[in-house]
């Protein structure tokens, strides 16, 4: 699979813009590991090139190093290597890393042990946690959601199994705004992000095929998700892997911002809190959705909004991306600590994110720092006077 990116790794000029940028150091993993060049894009590209040219062999150590990448895309964001004719970036480091992981696994190296358990769970019950399939729709109990409709809410595994409040809040807000929401129930499988990143290409394709068929069968014209990882996978990875989709994919923050702008909902229950917003990598850098979550937070009555120094395209990752939280939990926690400390350095009392995975990772660090972390949909529901 790496062969597909031969041109990209060859044109990497080893300049090092993936190390330091306008907002300081770029790679969270480099800052929390030994800091050697394989942590950053220029190093990984050299490694990939050496493999493709037959000068370097796979090893367990290389596998482990490759799997520490968060896929946060900050190196890709900063990379100055563009096609001068089109202005398009020539080196997509996330895709190169994923391809390297696929080839490593094919060659018998990896994935790291915790991810093998994730794969086994995925094959068996179609979620990374190993939770019973029958529990997937428990979050929707009592909501009487239809299983067919134009707008289908894709909850994702974190909201379905770990923080059902997010799913319930999202649906409640959308319904209040007049959106008729359907869901897939137990027919929803994991979006495939873990497999896309853990080198298990065949399983990721199987999952993607299933979800697309399920969404088609549900009559979806628009798929709404409150998970940044699911959003990027559905919106960009799915069509790249299996072709054009017969439905639109949007993030719940985009829909909610539109509902506010059109006056269909108002956030008029006072929330006297100072919020800051953590940009999820898969919503921000990958899909360029920066403004809707901010517009929402700024429209809450009584609330104040402040930015962290590293925001939008320069945001620091929560530490949980590309299954690093599963494979290397200590590394993920250290990076989450960074982000929480950055938030603590502002006058914010609470961090809001628009991704259940980010919320989960940041919450543990925030407890130590005596800060609160909320998902955007829950904050919105509260600001509408709803308690989910």
């Amino acid at each position, binding site marked *: 699979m790496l062969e597909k990116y031969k*041109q990209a790794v*060859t*044109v990497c*000029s*080893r*300049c*090092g*813009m993936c*190390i*330091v*940028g*306008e907002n*300081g150091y770029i790679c969270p993993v480099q800052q929390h*590991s*030994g*800091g*050697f*060049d*394989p942590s950053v894009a*220029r*190093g990984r590209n*050299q*490694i990939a090139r*050496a493999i493709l040219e037959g*000068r*370097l*062999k796979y*090893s*367990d*150590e*290389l596998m482990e*190093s490759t799997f520490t990448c968060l896929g946060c895309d900050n190196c890709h964001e900063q*990379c*100055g*290597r*563009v096609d*001068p004719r089109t202005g398009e970036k020539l080196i997509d480091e996330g895709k190169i890393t994923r391809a390297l992981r696929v080839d490593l696994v094919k060659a*018998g*190296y990896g994935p790291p042990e915790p991810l093998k358990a994730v794969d086994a769970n995925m094959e068996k019950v179609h979620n990374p946690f190993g939770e019973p399939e029958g529990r997937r729709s428990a979050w929707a109990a009592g909501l009487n959601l239809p299983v067919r409709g134009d707008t289908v809410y894709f909850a994702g595994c974190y909201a379905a199994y770990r923080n059902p409040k997010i799913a319930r809040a999202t649906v409640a807000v959308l319904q209040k705004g007049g959106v008729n929401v359907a869901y897939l129930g137990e027919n929803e499988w994991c979006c495939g992000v873990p497999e896309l990143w853990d080198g298990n290409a065949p399983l990721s394709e199987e999952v993607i095929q299933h979800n697309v068929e399920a969404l088609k069968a549900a009559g979806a014209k628009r798929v709404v998700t409150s998970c940044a990882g699911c959003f990027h996978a559905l919106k960009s990875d799915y069509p790249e892997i299996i072709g054009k989709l017969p439905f639109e994919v949007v993030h719940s923050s985009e829909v909610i911002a539109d509902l506010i702008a059109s006056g269909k909902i108002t956030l008029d229950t006072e929330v006297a809190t100072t919020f800051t917003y953590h940009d999820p990598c898969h919503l921000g850098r990958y899909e360029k959705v920066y403004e809707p979550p901010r517009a929402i937070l700024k429209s809450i009555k009584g609330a104040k909004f402040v930015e962290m120094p590293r925001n939008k395209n320069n945001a620091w990752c929560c530490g949980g991306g590309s299954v690093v939280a599963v494979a290397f939990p200590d590394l993920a926690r250290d990076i989450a600590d960074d982000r929480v400390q950055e938030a603590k350095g502002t006058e914010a009392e609470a961090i809001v994110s628009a991704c259940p995975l980010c919320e989960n990772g940041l919450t543990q660090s925030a407890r130590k720092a005596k800060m609160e972390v909320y998902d955007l949909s829950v904050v919105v529901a509260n600001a509408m006077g709803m308690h989910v």
Partner: protein
Amino acid sequence: MVTMAIRHHHLHDPLAAIVGSKYVADEDFVLETYSRDISAFPGSMPGIIVRPGTTEEVSEIVKLANRTGYPIVLKGGGQAGGGVTKGEPTRNIVIDMGRLDKVEVDIANLKATCGAGARNSRIDDALRPYGYYANTVIGPYFTATIGGVTSGIAGAGFGKNVSSVGCNWGHILGLKVVLPTGDIITTGAGPDSNIYRKDIEFREVTGPDLTSLFIGSGGALGIITEVAIKIYPIPKYSKAASYVFDTMENIWAAQLKMAESPTVLYTNLIMFEMANHMVRAMAGDMHGYGALFMAVEGDSEADVDLRLKEIEKICTGFGATRGTPALDHYAATGATGTGAFVHDVCAMSCPFMTWESMSTRSQSLEYAKGMLDILNNQFKEENAKYRTSGGLYTVPIANTMLIGITIHWDDTVPGVEEHNRKLWKAGADFMLKNGTFSAYAQGNHSSSISSAWSPTYYKVMSGIKKTLDPNNILNPGLWNL
């Protein structure tokens, strides 16, 4: 898959005892990433990499190297284009200086003390809130480290105000250096040159200027771990301009005329041929021979405007027209400001090799034509075959003219690197004979420069090297020493 116990380099554990095992690496895939710079020069595979966090750790590593006989090679930001220092391939201990990145600002004494691994942009980041800046490098602004620039570039590199204030060596107060024996010395009236001083104070009152010995040495004589630099208030007013010229002769005449002006007209003045990769990257294909980019700074807007008016008079007098907004933007962010744009352009231009040298002002035009003849005529057909191109740039610095040609290529063309090395050698030979080769104090550049040293000069340098580095531990072979 059979998992085998990892067999480490036998210096792994002793080095780990100094810096912690997290900061030592000897795996093949890590070594690969430290084997090359951005040039087409051949790489040199390290034996082991270590990332120390303090000067004392660097000292202990050097002492270990002396005890065991393993050579040391240094790595800063890694965007140099002179070829990595060869040392002894597969045996070198490569010291990555990146963790020594602290910047301490001392506004009262107008200085910043920077760890050698501090990136230039990070130094400005630390100074900006106080309203100050330092002379570092114009590009690569984010990647290059102050230690790498001070040690590995002639004259310690040049910053965004080089045309008015000269190369960086003149803005350095002193250095903390680990000598090849592991001893630590502080220059610049620091504690080693004046027993009553606790810190680096005044470079010019120390007797013989030991600081200069280490600047541009490439690390052959010592490892710079800290650089104390002067800082300056950010000027109140700054404007930029660009002018496009039709002929090489006109652009030359204009820049020499401006450089001769008894009133300092600009803080920086850079000339690029339109053929230069950097110009194409920022502005696309343009008509004309080349453009002058300038930054003008002052304490009042009227003062700045007066200088710009004089510049306009000179440039239009030689037939120039005002540059496009894109070119002005380059002047604003590249010739002054943060240097960020130059960094972008540098990244776009990589990989590259450079012919960079100094010429006297009066001979500079003929000298530049001689260099261009090699690029455009002598190697015309081969350059076309390998998709190699180049472009001229100049910067007036003090009494001289810095003249450079960056060579760019398509790395995917088979055989291109060998061709580029041949091309580069032809230019290097020309520069050695006709000007003063002035670029990277590293790898192939240093070998080429020192090949032109006189026997007496070589004897002196060799004596200094032997005195300081009796075991030839630091960067062996650098400068052919």
